[in-house]
């Protein structure tokens, strides 16, 4: 087993599952936080991730197959998608794939799923297809507010990590999103995103 990434919350190893190359994702104890809180969070997210990753397949989101889940060890073994996170691709490639990311997010929202952690590291490009991973923060809801928070997240990432191509990527992302959810839904969510930005971001000092 080789560690390939210290992820946002989990350690990621490459391993074998029935002779196929696989990914082992394990949420290890974080000693810095209260142990009650820690074990609750790790368990909850392992459950969420393994459920949602399979559920979204039913409406056409490409995701890794889940091979094995061990709740006690808060660990998931899944299919390895041997491509590259979108984050690591060239700028022109990121710009052109943004539309597809927008479509995938639109499709999830349309089907009542919030991803909860939309970053360019959580989309993997492999053989001309965009896969979605990392569903630990996902939840089921059709609340516009939650959908807007989801979009704001990816906007924040584009605006920071991909600042030089923010305009094009965000435009393409929204175009993809709109093509799935329809114009009126799109406008509603886009307005909500602006409203949310106004709250925290431009709040004055008190």
């Amino acid at each position, binding site marked *: 087993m080789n560690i390939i990434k210290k992820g946002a*919350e989990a350690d990621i190893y490459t391993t074998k599952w029935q002779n196929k190359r696989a990914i082992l994702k394990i949420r290890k104890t974080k000693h810095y936080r209260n142990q009650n809180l820690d074990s609750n969070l790790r368990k909850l997210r392992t459950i969420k991730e393994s459920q949602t990753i399979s559920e979204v397949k039913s409406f056409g989101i490409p995701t890794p197959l889940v091979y094995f889940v061990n709740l006690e060890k808060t660990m998931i073994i899944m299919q390895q998608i041997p491509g590259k996170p979108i984050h690591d691709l060239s700028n022109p490639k990121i710009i052109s794939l943004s539309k597809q990311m927008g479509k995938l997010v639109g499709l999830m929202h349309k089907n009542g799923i919030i991803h909860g952690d939309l970053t360019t590291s959580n989309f993997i490009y492999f053989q001309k297809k965009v896969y979605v991973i990392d569903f630990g923060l996902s939840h089921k809801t059709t609340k516009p507010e939650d959908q807007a928070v989801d979009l*704001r*997240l990816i906007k924040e990432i584009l605006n*920071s*990590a991909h*600042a030089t191509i923010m305009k094009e990527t965000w435009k393409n992302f929204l175009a993809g999103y709109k093509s799935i959810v329809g114009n009126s839904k799109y406008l509603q969510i886009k307005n909500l995103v602006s409203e949310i930005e106004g*709250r925290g971001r431009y*709040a*004055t000092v*008190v």
Partner: protein
Amino acid sequence: MIGLGIESTAHTFSCAVIKKNGKNGKILSDIRKIYRPPEGEGIHPREASRHHIENSSIVLSECLQEAKVTIKDIDIVSYAAGPGLGPCLRVGAVVARTLASYYKIPIYPVNHAIGHIELGKLLTGAKNPLVLLVSGGHTMILAFLNKQWRVFGETLDITLGQLLDQFGRSIGFASPCGVNIENLASTSSKYVPLPYSVKGNDVSFSGLLSASKSIVLKSKADACYSLQETAFAMISETVERALSFTEKKELLIVGGVAANKRLSEMLKDVCKRHGCKFFVTPLKFAGDCGSQICWTGLLENQIKKGVSLEDTFVTQSWRLDSVTVNY
């Protein structure tokens, strides 16, 4: 090069003198007077500005005296132009303008939040850090890219400082309440589950605030402990996400809440996992102070001549990610 910096964005009125020599800065003095609202109440902008006006001349003269300089030795004057409370900001700006025009000193408007970061870098030696800015006015995770500080995560509603202050006031502490909460929290180790709200790299504290208030009747200490544990774990997790995403090898904590020892302890552990160096602004300079403004002005001076008096604005909600940094 000797600079004078004036800070007056919120509670604190402060003047500082720094001597800059190449990349090095030496703080010669940093004098502050802090407005304290009545117990259980928040800051009143007009009361605070009155406090600042009343104290401005004494703070200024003490600051020059301690630095052993006269106003004639000052090469540039900088003031915090935002973000902050309008009436408070205007006091600092007026003092700076008066000095600049009477003594013909170049004047620099400085972004207060960038001031926290630059002073933190000066005092800790961090080179290319991921920055956690936690104060009354900000809760943000930032990294420098392409001439600007970019936001990788932030609060969706109230700041960490507001969370601590509003909760503290509800149990009768005088604000700023951070130290009192930290002390009371350290007497308990009973964790009461509270809403934990992390949304990607962002956090939301408003649900946590109201839930914390609803458990104080049982035990104030347990409430303080559980509030801190939950809020700081949320912050630590988002920092961890941003570290993993940006692959930065340094973390720097700045802003008033950087003084909290429990928060530092947790973030040190986060850094260990990511093989990352940990830096925190020294206690004395974590909160609002003239030095942060003075040092940033001196950095600006490397590439800019200063602004004309007509351009000495104040902007209540001046976002740090709208500032281009060229030095």
